[in-house]
């Protein structure tokens, strides 16, 4: 049984879904904010809040291009974020195997 604690930054439903969704994209790919919002069915404010927490931890990077209505924000999982999800998944498996 693993005694590894679950990473609190990822261990929240919305953030877990954000990280899992971005992790299915190939390394280096980015996803538009609107598509991510569409897939996760989150409000823009809710998504921004969770993305900020993930960004503060270095797990996602966001990039804004253009201004006004033509502006576009893209989100990508960083290498650190990918590793954090791997570690989280391993810790989760350890916990579930121990139950």
């Amino acid at each position, binding site marked *: 049984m693993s005694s590894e604690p*679950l990473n609190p930054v990822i261990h*929240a*439903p919305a953030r877990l879904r954000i990280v*899992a969704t971005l992790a299915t994209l*190939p390394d280096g790919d980015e996803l538009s904010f609107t598509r991510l919002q569409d897939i996760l069915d989150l409000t823009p404010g809710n998504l921004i809040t969770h993305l900020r927490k993930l960004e503060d931890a270095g797990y996602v990077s966001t990039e804004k291009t253009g201004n006004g209505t033509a502006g576009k924000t893209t989100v990508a999982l960083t290498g650190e974020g990918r590793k954090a999800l791997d570690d989280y998944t391993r810790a*989760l498996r350890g916990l579930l195997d121990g139950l």
Partner: protein
Amino acid sequence: MNTEPDTNTSATTGDDGELDPAKAAAILTQATRQAQREFDPTPPWKLVAMAFVALLAFGAIWLSVRGQHPYTGPSAWALVITYALVAVLIAVSVSTTKRATAGVTGPSVRQRRTLIAAIVVVYIAVYVFMGALKYLGVSHAIVYGVYPAVGPLIIVGGAMAGVAAAKENWLDLGTALAVVSAGAICAYAGPVGVWLAVGISLFVIVSARAAVLAWRRRA
């Protein structure tokens, strides 16, 4: 990690409260599967459609050349059916790919576009070479029979195998090598039988790939 309760409610509410590990595992599985479905430009259902298109198109050509003595090549009606089926398939493919890659940018999108462009060029080269064969006086059985049936499989399949090997994508490599092998073996069926043999081979290979992909998603 295979149970899938409805996680939408909890996922859209506030979030920093207690989260049961079993529920977290279910959310992780569900989110991953949903994302894989969303971003997949060639889902299993599309592959099954492609398998049937191959069977119908090559089957139609086989019906049109069956009993030809001497062999003259596919009739116009069979080619119209084939081109119509291929056109529908291309339209569906463009639509699903657009939907799957909407909002996605980065290296994989650029690589896909480059790969499609390269395959189109290779495909055109296959048919330019067919013109050369005709020009050089090669028999109809080869120019309008064996070569157009198996040439694209061996040449385009070989190119795809190289790309898959470089990426260490074993499913793609297995599929491409199966297509190349099928092309080489089907050539022995002769100018008439080759059409049916290729149709059946592609149907089996593409259906098998769809089954593997569907199974992987459920695993």
